[in-house]
């Protein structure tokens, strides 16, 4: 009995040693190959699954900081633009106000969609401009570059006629200059291709706006 059993196992192991090394190699080779394939596939799957998590902009990335801060910055431009659209006296002021309000509101949607696709909250808890290398120094009274104070916004809301037009143009020029500076920040520090492309379009738009806002201010006899 024991002999038979031994024989069986011996038959299995008979080819071992010398030429038998190949037998072991063959036996474990198949197992090892199968295991290696399975493990390799698992690792590959996990890698593919996780790579986007590790490569997409994170909570403290410049991209996330830009998207959040520029949303806030844009929101005030939208407020000013809508005021101009409704309260402006000069037709170009009304037109340009509507253009800026709708354009920047659209860009807010783009930036908020980025944040959602990066699985980040729409807003952060870092101070404004923390993402930009020279950012914190540019913040005045908690306001990002070019942004109007609550008092200035109240003054704009209360203004009428030419006074409103001039005030709006002055404030929007300042707002855009600050905005372009922030866009330069992300063009400098950003890595995400889509963010860089959209930021460049934002910059183009705001620079065009600046040309036209300045010309309108000059036409209306105002100064910065």
């Amino acid at each position, binding site marked *: 009995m024991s*002999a038979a059993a*031994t*024989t069986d196992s*011996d038959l299995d*192991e*008979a080819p*071992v*040693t*010398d030429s*038998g*090394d190949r037998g*072991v*190699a063959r036996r*474990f*080779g198949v*197992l*090892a190959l199968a*295991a*290696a394939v399975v*493990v390799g596939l*698992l*690792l590959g*799957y*996990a890698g593919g*699954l*996780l790579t986007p*998590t590790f490569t997409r902009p994170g909570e403290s990335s410049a991209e996330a900081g830009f998207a959040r801060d520029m*949303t*806030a910055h844009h*929101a*005030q431009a*939208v*407020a000013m633009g*809508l005021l101009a659209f*409704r309260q402006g006296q000069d037709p170009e002021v009304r037109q340009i106000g509507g253009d800026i309000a709708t354009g920047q*509101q659209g860009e*807010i*949607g783009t930036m*908020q969609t980025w944040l959602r696709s990066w*699985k980040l*909250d*729409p*807003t*952060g*808890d870092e101070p404004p401009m923390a993402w930009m290398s020279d950012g914190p120094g540019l913040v005045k*009274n*908690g*306001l990002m570059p070019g*942004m109007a104070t*609550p008092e200035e*916004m*109240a003054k704009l*809301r209360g203004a009428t006629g030419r006074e409103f037009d001039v005030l709006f143009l002055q404030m929007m020029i300042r707002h855009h200059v600050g905005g372009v500076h922030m866009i330069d920040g992300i063009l400098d520090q950003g890595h995400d291709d889509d963010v860089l492309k959209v930021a460049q379009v934002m910059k183009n738009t705001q620079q065009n706006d600046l040309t036209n806002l300045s010309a309108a201010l000059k036409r209306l006899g105002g100064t910065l």
Partner: protein
Amino acid sequence: MSISTPGGPERRPTVVSTGKKPAAGRPAAADKPSGGRTAAGKGASRPTGGKGRKPVTPVKVSQGRAWGPIALFVAVGVLAVAIIGVGAWAVYQGAQPWEKRADAINGIVDFRKKDKDLVKGGQHQPGPIKYDVLPPVGGPHNQAWQNCMGDVYDAPIANEHAVHSLEHGTVWITYRPDLPADQVAKLKAKVQGKEKLMLSPFEGLDKPISLQAWGFQLKVDNADDGRIDDFIKTLRVNASVEGPTALCDQGVTATGTTPRDNLGNNMPEQPTQ
């Protein structure tokens, strides 16, 4: 089989006997009683074994060989599982929906679970409205919203406008009028200039500070309470019924608890949501 190579060094004793088969195999096997026992069995039963030394080594070798790859693949397997596990956990954590994170804030009241009708949202209703939960966290509201561009109001505002701001994703911080000035200043610093936030005193609060988002409320005693920032971070914009592009400007900027539905020339036909 390059994979088996790194496995070898881990088990040095075995490698010594197996790795150098021709030289070390025989003496190593002969030393061991177990080796001798099996070897004898083999030698006896093997019909075709050519050389006498063969039976000695094979068992030894195959036993040694068995552990190398097994250990290796167990190690690699454990590593793979660990990588997948850690990654999956990170993804799961990162992807925790804000609703879950909101519910995890200690002391928060989630009216979206408690009172679904209250937070269905939606309809505009002119004039004063009675709210059962105070400060209100949802329900019908005036067509005009309270301006919520990080506005700091130094007097109470109308619930009928404020609720509309909540619907647009605003976190509305209210405080009892007797809250010390330094505490109010801390709240103001959190709010001012940040869209989808507003601050106002509120008469008759049972706690010094109460935070509202659409369907959520948290009451705290102190402006230094860390849950205030958690509430803001988790619910600002996220709690919006109408998404991140709902407006906060173009709203009522005046204070006073009487709703101003007739906004006069300064606020002509607001687009209604």
